[in-house]
C-alpha cells in the first residue's frame, strides 16, 4: 500500500490527516516542519507528500524545493491555509502538483492523494 508523508506543524492536523489516510488504507509518515520533512522524505521514500506551508524551522515552500532538488520526480501537494494567488503560483512553479486550501474535506484530500499516486 502507498506511503504518504504528512507534513504539518499542528499536531491536530497531522492527527486528522493521518486518520483520513489510514482509514483509506494508506501508510502514513509524519513530519512537523520543513527540515523534518526533507529528512523523512530521504529516509522513507514516500509515494506522495502532503505539505503545509506555514511552519517553524523551514517553511513548506522551501522544503518542496529541497525535496524536488533531491528527487525531481517527487509528488508533492500543498495543504495550507495560505491561499494567496502569488503563493499558489510559486508552489506550482516549484513543482507542487496540487494545492489544497485548508480546511479541506476528507474526500478532497483522498482525491488529491489518489491523483498523486496514480
Amino acid at each position, binding site marked *: 500500500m502507498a506511503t504518504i508523508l504528512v507534513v504539518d*506543524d*499542528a*499536531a*491536530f*492536523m497531522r*492527527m486528522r490527516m493521518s486518520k483520513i489516510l489510514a482509514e483509506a488504507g494508506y501508510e502514513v509518515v509524519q513530519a512537523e516542519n520543513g527540515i523534518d520533512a526533507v529528512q523523512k522524505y530521504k529516509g522513507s521514500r514516500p509515494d506522495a507528500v502532503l505539505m503545509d506551508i*506555514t*511552519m*517553524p524551522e523551514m*517553511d513548506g515552500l522551501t522544503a518542496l524545493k529541497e525535496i524536488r532538488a533531491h528527487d525531481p520526480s517527487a509528488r508533492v501537494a500543498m495543504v*495550507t*491555509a*495560505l*491561499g*494567496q*494567488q*502569488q*503563493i499558489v503560483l510559486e508552489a506550482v512553479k516549484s513543482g507542487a502538483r496540487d494545492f489544497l486550501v*485548508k*480546511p*479541506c*474535506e476528507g474526500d478532497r484530500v483522498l482525491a488529491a492523494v489518489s491523483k498523486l499516486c496514480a
Partner: protein
Amino acid sequence: MNASLAETITGTLSRVARDGAVRAGRGLSGLMGQEITIHIPSVRIGTKADACDAVGGEESIVLGAYLSMSGDISGHVMLLFPIGRALECVDLMCGEAPGTTAEPDELAESAIGELSNIVGSAFVNALGDYTGLVLHPSPPVILHDIAIALVQSVYAEILSQGGDVVMIDTVFEDTSGATAGLLILAPDPLCLALLKEHAA
C-alpha cells in the same frame, strides 16, 4: 493620519475584511461542521480595547493564537475565543461529543492554533489578493490569558511605532447567536502608506 489616507485605508480594509470574513466563515463552517456567521468586520482607526466586549469582557479568560504577519506588509493577527467556547470548538473539530474536552491539553491547544491559523490566514489571504502583495502569517503562538492583556499588548506595539492604530475586529457567531470568537488584524503603521498605494 490625514483624512484622505484614513478614508482610503478604511475603504480598502473594509472591502478586504468583507472578503476575509466570507473566506473565514467557509473555513470555520467546514472545520466545525456547522454554520458559523462572521459579522461584517468593523474597521476602526485609533480604536481601543473595547474589542474585549466580544469575548465576555476585559477580564475574561480566552484561548486563542497570535500570528505575526510579515512579507510586503507586516502586522499582527490575533484570534481569541472565550475559553468555554474554545473547548466546544475543539470538540466539534475532533468530532467528539460536546463537553468532552474539559481543559486545554496539548491537542486542544493545537486544534485552537490550527483554527486560528485557518481563520487568520483567510483574512491575510484576502488582504494579499486584494492588494497584489504577498503576506506570510507566522505559525500560530497559542495564547491562554486574560483577554485585555492580549489585546492591549498588540495595541501598545502599534502605538509605540508612532503611527495610527488601524484594527479590524470582527466577531464570529454560531447559528444560536452565541459568540464564538474575536479576530483582530492590525497592520504596522509603517505599512499603511504601502497599503494605500496598492488599494484597488
